[in-house]
């Protein structure tokens, strides 16, 4: 099995689907000649031509709205937002048109919007956000947040196959940092099925995306104190694997929810509420939330470090839970 970076796995999955299925096309700003701001579609235009790898004008509304029309006409568009932050300019088309079209008009809208998200390299307020929770509130959208190269490929293929609008959040900080074995053949990774990143007995951490690795480093620290931490990587936020979360919560009786998005109204709150509704009597401690503070993502390195949950923050939270 070849070793691929997270970014190569996304490219690999997308290229494979474009070879297999003529309906799949790519559209976005600078995705063609330039190969995308992060080079996910490097070489795609040479292989698939200018009408399947379209350089769009700087117009997110036209991109997302256009994908909706093309999808209703039977194609399988994969749009790239240059940065996840820019999806705010296409919000209306996702939320008003694409998300509601099947429910009200019976017309499926199978589009994938790729969203390079997350901070960690001083991108500032407009190149670092993790807006997945905002969209989790909108009925009709599916939300995917892969953490590993293998999932990045399998979840992208599932997203393209899915008959609904899917937001595919790819964490920029994982692009070239994370590398692992990825099967060469085509495979899908099902939505709504969490992955046990690390098995443990004492505390459950529910998280996704880049925070899986932050949690893992913290768990290694706790291991030295004989505290065994289980890490659940949700993989997809909508739908999310309630069953796996509840089972793990019942097993360990102590739960932390961890995300890079801001705290108030973050998806962690939904998870915590569900656990307290359905597994309250199994809990030995209040559910702990670790998330970014309720601020824009600041630019300067010490501020950004204070914004994104760090290994020490998670480890401290885990110790508190262990001692409770």
């Amino acid at each position, binding site marked *: 099995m070849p070793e691929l970076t997270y970014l190569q796995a996304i490219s690999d999955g997308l290229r494979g689907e474009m070879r297999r299925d003529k309906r799949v*096309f790519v559209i976005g700003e600078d995705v063609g000649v330039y190969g995308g701001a992060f080079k996910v579609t490097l070489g795609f235009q040479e292989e698939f031509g200018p009408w399947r790898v379209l350089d769009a004008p700087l117009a997110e509304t036209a991109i997302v709205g256009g994908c909706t029309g093309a999808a209703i006409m039977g194609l399988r568009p994969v749009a790239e937002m240059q940065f996840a932050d820019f999806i705010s300019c296409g919000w209306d*088309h996702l939320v008003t048109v694409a998300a509601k079209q099947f429910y009200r008009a019976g017309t499926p809208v199978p589009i994938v919007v790729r969203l390079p998200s997350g901070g960690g390299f001083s991108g500032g307020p407009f190149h670092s956000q993790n807006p997945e929770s905002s969209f989790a509130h909108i009925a009709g959208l599916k939300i995917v947040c892969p953490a590993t190269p293998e999932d990045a490929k399998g979840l992208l293929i599932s997203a393209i196959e899915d008959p609904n609008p899917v937001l595919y959040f790819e964490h920029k900080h994982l692009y070239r940092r994370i590398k692992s074995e990825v099967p060469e053949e085509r495979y899908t990774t099902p939505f709504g099925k969490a992955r046990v990143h690390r098995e443990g007995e004492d505390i459950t951490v529910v998280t996704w995306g880049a925070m899986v690795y932050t949690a893992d480093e913290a768990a290694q620290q706790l291991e030295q104190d004989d505290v065994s931490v289980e890490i659940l990587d949700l993989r997809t936020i909508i739908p999310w694997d309630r069953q796996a979360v509840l089972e793990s919560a019942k097993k360990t009786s102590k739960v932390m929810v961890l995300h890079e998005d801001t705290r108030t109204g973050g998806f962690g709150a939904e998870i915590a509420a569900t656990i307290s509704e359905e597994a309250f009597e199994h809990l030995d401690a209040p559910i702990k939330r670790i998330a970014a503070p309720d601020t824009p993502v600041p630019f300067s390195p010490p501020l950004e470090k204070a914004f994104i949950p760090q290994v020490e923050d998670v480890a401290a939270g885990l110790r508190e839970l262990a001692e409770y």
Partner: protein
Amino acid sequence: MAIAREAEPVSSLREIREAGLDREDLFGIYRNMLLTRGVEERGHILYRQGKIPGSFYTGRGNEASVGVATAMGADDVGCPLHRDMGVHVTRGVEPWRIFAQYMGREDGPTRGRDGNVHMADSQLGLLAMVSHLPAMLPVAVGCALAFRIREERRVALGWFGEGASARGDAHEGMNFAGVRRLPVVFICDNNQWAYSTPTHLEYACETLADRAAAYGFEGVVVDGTDVLAVYREAKRAIEKAREGGGPTLIESMTLRMEGHAVHDDAFYVPKELFEEWAKRDPIERFRTWLRENAEMTDEEEDDVSAGVKRTLTQALERAEASPLPDPSTITDRVFARAEDLDTPHHK
């Protein structure tokens, strides 16, 4: 000075034959215009009777939208808006389903999930509008993009009002369509009022069709009360797009003859304006044209109106028999399943 071309009226049966319509087609147009108005008039009565929840919108004065739909090919698609009932009727949406939609019944095109003219039958090549105008323009452009990618000889039509021309969606959609020379026709229903806001507070150019030049394609202004002129310009634009000639923006000039919705008495529209445009009622104009140019007899005229009346009466009965949706199904069909992709477009 205006940049856009001004469309000529159609002055004889010979001229309209050259544009692709025979005498029988003309009677079909007349019938569809009467049916369009009839659906809205009957709908208004239902609303007053308290049988229609929410609000109620009409397109009185814009029945020439039938002309645009008549110019569309069977495989073409369009995103008509709340003043374009004529498009639904002409594409073949059965009036009883429209009444069922108005009343929130299970047999309306949206099965009670959405109301009023927020509907479409995808089997007839129509896409359901949303309230956020002109959000359907980029969607129509996306349909045209799909046709271009697959190299199909199909055309997409996107409607918008002069009010919606102020929003960014109009610009982004038209710019992208122009850049890629996509097979799309933009129809601007300029009815002079965006709710209570007149045109001089909406845009500063002489005509909206003038904007087409800035996007690199042709703009045409047409008298929107003249159904044959509307048909002929739509036909030209659609066939041009089909042949690879790129988009056209057609601005169809009318007056919104009623309020924004039926709760609105349009007190802000000068009375003289209503009086002036009432003389140019699109149905009355076409009826006169048919009598003068196509020798429509009293008998033929009565035949058409009687047929329309019959259709409407039966439609109302059938719609009132349609059940209301079952509340226990509220969470069904939020997400599509693979088998739901089995629509004409996904085959």
